[in-house]
């Protein structure tokens, strides 16, 4: 019992210092998320816990971003922000927790899907590109580096 207690205490003490839990994304936050960046490209990477392809897609996007400083990558989970601990653990396991992350905070996730992109049926992963000139592109499914480069260009 004692080691277990210590474990919990250690975790409780340590969590706030190291965790970057997803920030709630409400319908009211969507316009700001979709606003064109002042320069470069914003990449919105939509993912879900129940999507076996999503972490690989996030990793590919993170690798691309590492080589392109003008790319602003935002990771958005379509799962509820109440699952922040699970989302954070999965992102940590994929070494993606240093990036800005959001999670849905709406009773109707389909509504956020629609507000983010009416042409998106909610399939995951979904990658959305928003350029400084206001133009947008989107693709569904796991992307490789060549596909990402084509999409962002």
């Amino acid at each position: 019992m004692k080691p277990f207690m210590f474990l919990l205490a250690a975790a409780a003490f340590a969590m706030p210092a190291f965790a970057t839990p997803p920030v709630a994304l409400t319908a009211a936050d969507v316009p700001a998320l979709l606003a064109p960046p002042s320069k470069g490209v914003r990449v919105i990477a939509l993912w879900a816990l129940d999507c076996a392809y999503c972490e690989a897609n996030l990793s590919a996007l993170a690798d691309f971003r590492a080589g392109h400083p003008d790319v602003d990558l935002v990771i958005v989970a379509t799962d509820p922000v109440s699952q922040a601990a699970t989302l954070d653990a999965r992102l940590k396991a994929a070494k993606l927790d240093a990036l800005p992350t959001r999670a849905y905070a709406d009773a109707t996730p389909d509504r956020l899907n629609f507000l983010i992109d009416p042409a998106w049926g909610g399939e995951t992963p979904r990658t959305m590109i928003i350029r400084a000139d206001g133009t947008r592109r989107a693709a569904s499914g796991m992307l490789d580096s060549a596909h990402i480069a084509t999409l962002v260009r």
Partner: protein
Amino acid sequence: MRRLLAFFSLVACATVAHAQHDMAGMTMGHGAPLGFDAAIDPAGNLWVVDTVGEHVRARRSDDMGRTFALSTIVNATGEPLYAEGENRPKIALGPKGELYVTWSQPRKLPWTGFVRFSRSLDGGAHFDPPKTVHTDRAEITHRFDSLAVDGKGDVLVAWIDKRDLEAANARKKPYAGAATYYSWSTDRGATFAPERKIADQSCECCRIALARAPDGHIDAFFRAIYGDNIRDHAFAALPTDGSAPKVERATFTQWHIEGCPHHGPSLAIDARGTRHAVWFSAADGKATVWYGQLAPGKEPARVLSLAGNGASHADLAVAGDHVWVAYHQMTAQGLDLVLRESNDGGAHFGEPRTLAHTDGPSGWPKLVLWDGRAFVAWNPGGTFRLVPTEALLSSGSQP
């Protein structure tokens, strides 16, 4: 330094343990899970299954969903449940008043699950303790269950299963998606035959549509993978004599996605054997709910785009020449329940008609038939409703 490392590893362990615990009790939704299923028995009583916490609940309404005269917990001992979206509890009725219920039970690790079954032989007063349908007990995906009763009264259960993916991974062989399996019971659900594979390399996240053909056998229609992640649909009759199902490609939208559509199809077969189907595709970036009459091995006949952006989770029912399709239409103002209807066997469909609206969420719509009429089972905000398809919410869009 060593002490610091030990500390870090402790934190990492604690975080993983916490995550796994969350996963076990996980519902994929935002608030109470809203997955439900509905069926109407020959006496005109409506049966609804949904979930309350870790319990599946079966309810009977004798007044078409206004009130419930009976409410019974199916699994007396609580367990984690998938109860949302494409992964909802199911109910099917046997010819002697049997109630059959299935659901998928999340296991500890992500994407894992067991398919569970229970039955009531006393009109819903009691349910048998649930059992796992499949003999394979590996801690992997067996979920997205579907349930049907054939013309002989045999019970069929189909699901998505990753045992072949796991085996391929172990041999370092490529394997796309998951497999689709099924089992059946010829003794009113007392026992199930060892499961059989329907197809390899099918989609891992879309419900399987099951429908009874005029001769009584059950057909399956499900999203499969062709070539490099072309996610179209396959059709297969499901034999219960131990012979292998014959699987043929049945849609040809050419949607390429290495991902999870989370949009399963629906199938209903009329007395002439015409296989009416709806399915979702976003080929060429165009999200579309399609209708067609399946001709396995070939392009479907009478293919029609029923709905586009924001439309999802269509269900379909048929009676004689009457075909009904109900679906969710998301808008910036909230969620509409929309109907499209054909009176000529699917040759033509009327304009979309909004039956109901909610500002909040709802479980996927389910069409049920009674006395030649169709109703849409719906539960906006968790409140069950049976919406008559003759209902009209907004004016000006009547076909």
